[in-house]
């Protein structure tokens, strides 16, 4: 390898690939060689798609998720119930919520969660944007659907703190035994929490 400060194009490509999650020096080298050796058209497509995506994709003005337009398709749709707002951590969570077909309202994607130990605070995720969005007068109910991890719970707590007493109904999705779950095979932690959060029948 060269000893000077400048990187060759190959070295630069390997370095650039390392920005992907879970890709170390070895994996990056393998990907670079594969693209150059075996799949040059694929490499061109990848480069063009990346360039276009970076240029055109931005945040939806309403839900904070990715879109190419001012509003994403979901937020722009006239069929959605604009009085309900469901808060999720990531676009992947939004896709999952959509697959349930059980929700007809709008979404807000935080693009992260509060994690004190990783130094991620309320300013690093879209909490201030969410506060503005939830208090715009249209929203009557905010459904907090952050993960049931400690970080997701902390995020839910912050959302509660910034929205309570503002005349909005606040709710958290329920947790417990999965659909079709048999108690014998449910993990103990879930069952214990299902007992704590039991409801009258």
């Amino acid at each position, binding site marked *: 390898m060269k000893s000077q400060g400048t990187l060759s194009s190959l070295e630069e490509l390997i370095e650039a690939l390392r920005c992907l*999650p*879970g890709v170390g020096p070895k994996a990056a080298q393998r990907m670079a060689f594969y693209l150059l050796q075996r799949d040059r058209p694929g490499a061109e497509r990848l480069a063009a798609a990346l360039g276009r995506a970076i240029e055109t994709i931005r945040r939806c003005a309403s839900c904070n998720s990715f879109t190419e337009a001012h509003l994403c398709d979901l937020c722009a749709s006239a069929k959605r119930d604009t009085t309900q707002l469901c808060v999720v951590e990531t676009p992947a969570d939004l896709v999952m919520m959509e697959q349930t077909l059980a929700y007809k309202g709008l979404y807000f994607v935080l693009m992260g969660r*509060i994690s*004190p*130990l*990783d*130094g*991620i*605070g*309320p*300013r690093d995720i879209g*909490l*201030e944007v969410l*506060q503005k969005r939830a208090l715009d007068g249209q929203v009557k109910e905010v459904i907090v659907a952050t993960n049931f*991890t*400690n970080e997701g*719970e*902390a995020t839910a*707590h*912050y959302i509660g*703190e*910034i929205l309570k007493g503002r005349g909005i109904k606040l709710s958290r999705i329920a947790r417990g035994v999965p659909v079709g779950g048999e108690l014998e095979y449910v*993990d*103990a*932690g*879930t069952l*214990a*929490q299902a007992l*704590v959060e039991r409801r009258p029948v």
Partner: protein
Amino acid sequence: MHTYPYKETSLLVDAFTKASGRITLVARSARRPRSAMRGTLMAFQPLSLSWVGRGEVKTLTKAEWLGGISLLRGEALLCAFYLNELLIRLLAREDAHEALFDRYADALRQFSVGEASAPILRRFEKALLKELGYALVLDREAFTGEQIDPARYYTYDPEKGALAARDSETEHAVIGRTLLSLARDEFDDIRTSHEARALMRSLINHRLEARQLNSRRVFRELLEL
């Protein structure tokens, strides 16, 4: 105490154990959708862990949920993050701290049943300093060895201990009553519990040297919103 994503599907687990202190484990495949460990490796939950390996990072072979502490929420959850950050920042790896482990387990149990957080935090901070080898001396003046007078003013030097202050105007001065009630774990009085909080914060900061605690910054941001 905390998990970090590692490679494609694994987790690095920072765990606080009774017999081995703070250890780092790698949980192979724990991030796969159907992994049995997914959901079990949650901070603030008592677990029974088995591992193999001798190096600095061990391989987790089994994690069983012990239960007994309901999931934390709200303010208690934020306080518990603070405890974990203190442990991660201040404890060396693989030093057993059994007394501190018990104190930590008690603190989590008390948080989970909704006890007031300030006394829990002060007791834990005191136990932590003691385990690190800097136990507080709260009943005697360090220079003269005289008993602390509840009505006089003192400053607390992290290396020396309580020193008599000229008056209440001295920087960081606390009233003797604060030191005595901190020693007895009494936090009913608003003034002394306020002073005890500031005192413990400055002592912890001294041990952290220049490092900032993320959890404190995050709480501050919440209050500002």
